[in-house]
């Protein structure tokens, strides 16, 4: 016996969406690729009209900027009340979101979702396809890699908020004190790591206790394409050339114990960043604001450099970052879509940047005042220039799994064991692949077929 589950949407909503779709089919075709201001579809008008009506929507987000953004939005649209809820950070929120979806009610209208987690919600048809609201025309407003991350085929599942092109953040005082050169290649980075730890065994070039996000990003940078999915067919190959290239390189740091095993974001980690016992970080462009508030002890010492590469030519990857999506459960789709668009354009982005975020919008990325920012925490360095260069050298073509949140949850069971034993990461990656493959098969995907 087989019961086919119909993830039925409320009839009213389906009808409304259908109407919207028919109305806009023509308009969309006409304006795709154009700038947002040029989209004069009936749809934009409908959204604009809906924002003038009295309504209340719920927005789940944990970002520090959300509160100010909501306040600014409500000031601009006094009839709309946005009920901001912090339902947990990252995975905690996705769990709650998944529960609400499973339960069929209780999900917010708009939710913050990181890029890596989006495919999972897309797959379960939990997110509204925003292309039916004419959002296709917004493509040129966002950096290519973030736009790719929120779309699947012709469907648009979210708008990008921030991005995390990776760079090397390093403590210049420590680098100077121990005579380390700012590395341009990973070989140089490994040499620095050995030199520093030999000179002072309490100091490490960086920390890595095993982090799925960092691992996938570094595989991305090395040119690996371990995850390929289209429809229900999924390929997992964490032993492809890029993955192996990464593992062989990173092994040289992990196996001899040249990286600290302090978990990121722990109190000990902040302390180590403050007192210089962790001398650099390989992380996303959203890091500066965090350093400024969390590692006060080393203020003025930090600098940003391009991520080291294998051959010295610029290449980087995205690390973290995310955007917002409208939930299919939302009973107020138009207002939700309007809020979403406001959050990730013009005024919404300005508020976001004031709170120390790194944008995904091309207008802000290329804004002269943004590029002229020279924070004293970074010794007056024009850090956004470095980070913008990173944004422009992200290796294209990366995909996450349609069940990446699950895969990440078993990272510590598999690759984490290589970290715990200071042993070959390739073995851990093979085990991770095995777990991911068997889960995918269990969930009905055609994996590696």
């Amino acid at each position: 016996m087989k019961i086919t589950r119909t993830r039925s949407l409320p009839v009213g909503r389906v009808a409304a969406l259908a109407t919207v779709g028919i109305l806009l089919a023509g308009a969309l075709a006409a304006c795709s690729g154009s700038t947002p201001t040029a989209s004069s579809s009936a749809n934009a008008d409908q959204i604009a009209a809906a924002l003038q009506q009295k309504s209340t929507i719920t927005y789940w987000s944990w970002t520090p900027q959300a509160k100010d953004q909501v306040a600014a939005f409500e000031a601009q649209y006094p009839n709309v009340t946005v009920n901001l809820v912090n339902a947990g950070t990252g995975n905690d929120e996705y769990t709650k979101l998944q529960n609400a979806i499973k339960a069929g009610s209780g999900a917010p209208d708009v939710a913050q979702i990181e890029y890596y987690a989006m495919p999972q919600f897309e797959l379960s048809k939990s997110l509204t396809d925003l292309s039916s609201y004419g959002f296709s025309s917004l493509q040129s407003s966002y950096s290519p890699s973030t736009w790719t991350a929120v779309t699947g085929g012709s469907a648009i599942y979210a708008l990008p908020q921030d991005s995390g092109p990776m760079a090397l953040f390093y403590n210049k005082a420590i680098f100077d004190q121990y005579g380390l050169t700012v590395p341009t290649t990973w070989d140089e980075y490994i040499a620095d790591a050995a030199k520093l730890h030999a000179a002072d065994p309490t100091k490490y070039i960086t920390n890595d206790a095993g982090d799925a996000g960092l691992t996938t990003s570094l595989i991305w940078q090395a040119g690996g394409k371990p995850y390929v999915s289209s429809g229900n067919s999924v390929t997992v190959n964490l032993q492809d050339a890029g993955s192996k290239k990464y593992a062989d390189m990173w092994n040289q740091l992990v196996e001899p114990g040249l990286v600290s095993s302090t978990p990121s974001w722990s109190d000990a980690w902040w302390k180590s960043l403050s007192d210089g016992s962790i001398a650099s970080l390989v992380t996303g462009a959203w890091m500066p604001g965090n350093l400024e508030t969390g590692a006060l002890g080393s203020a003025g010492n930090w600098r940003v450099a391009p991520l080291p590469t294998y051959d010295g030519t610029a290449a980087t990857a995205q690390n973290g970052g995310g955007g917002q999506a409208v939930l299919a459960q939302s009973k107020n789709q138009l207002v939700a879509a309007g809020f979403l668009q406001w959050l990730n354009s013009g005024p919404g982005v300005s508020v976001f940047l004031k709170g120390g975020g790194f944008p995904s919008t091309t207008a802000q990325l290329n804004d002269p005042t943004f590029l002229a920012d020279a924070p004293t925490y970074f010794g007056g360095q024009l850090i956004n220039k470095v980070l913008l260069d990173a944004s422009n050298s992200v290796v294209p073509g990366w995909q996450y799994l349609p069940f990446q949140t699950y895969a990440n949850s078993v990272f510590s069971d598999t690759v984490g064991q290589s970290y715990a034993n200071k042993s070959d990461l390739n073995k851990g990656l093979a085990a991770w692949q095995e777990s991911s493959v068997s889960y995918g098969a269990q969930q009905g995907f055609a994996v590696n077929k």
Partner: protein
Amino acid sequence: MSSLQLSSPPVMRRTKRQWTGWMFVLPFLLVFALVLVAPVIYAVYLSLFRDQLVGGNAFVGFANYVEALTDPNFWDSLGRVVLFLVVQVPIMLLIALAAALALDSARLHAASFFRIAIFLPYAVPAVVAVLMWGFIYGTQFGLVGSFDKFFGIAFDPLAPNVVLAAIGNINTWEFTGYNMLLFYAALRVISGDLYEAAELDGARAFQVIRSIKLPALRPAIVIAVIFSIIGSFQLFNEPNILKSLAPNSISTFFTPNMYAYNLSFAGQQYNYSATIAIIMGVLTAVIAYIVQLRGSRKEL
């Protein structure tokens, strides 16, 4: 003599009022049915299906049970709580027993202060307990770190091979006082006549403990063991909260309960998770029942 026998307390013949008792029991049972019985039935129902991300929901009979019983992760988690049970529970109960006997001996200065202070950790929420011990276990800035530096060693309580002991320590800290009080209360109701008789016989303190106190404690020990078995098999809060500090040491299937939780919440395998829950429930009930039977059979 034992209140733990699996039989109802003395039957009262009062056929006329047959249904009056229901009036008192019904409110409890109604809520009980809603919050416990219904979810159990629902879990059994869930365990007979398999819902996939691709392909939807299908009736699979006992396939989930077959899968669970051949799942190395499940056996791994079960083995770990059994190890926890046979090591941590005896240690905790022996400490609690010794402390209760010490309190009861009347040879202790400031006994009531001891009693309350040792019981205090029981009142501390597991979340707070794990937060505190997590800080203490820190090898860099925690208390352990200070000791490591002082003795020039590199002991890490959260390393994979000792993390179970670190969790056992948190549980021992939380529940020793509770068990001590359970035993102490049982000691307090021993009739004074027994002691007088023993003293007339010239019995020494340890003889009194062996031949009077321990037999009288048997029902309390049985109940403490049963609660500890249930507690061990349900081990969840401590490892789950500690996992953020030691992700590589505590796997997603560290205990059966964590496994069930992660199956549901990380993997959306609600059906398989319900299966694990049912298996653990039956297993716990059976073991608790056996302990209970053995405990009362050997009664003196």
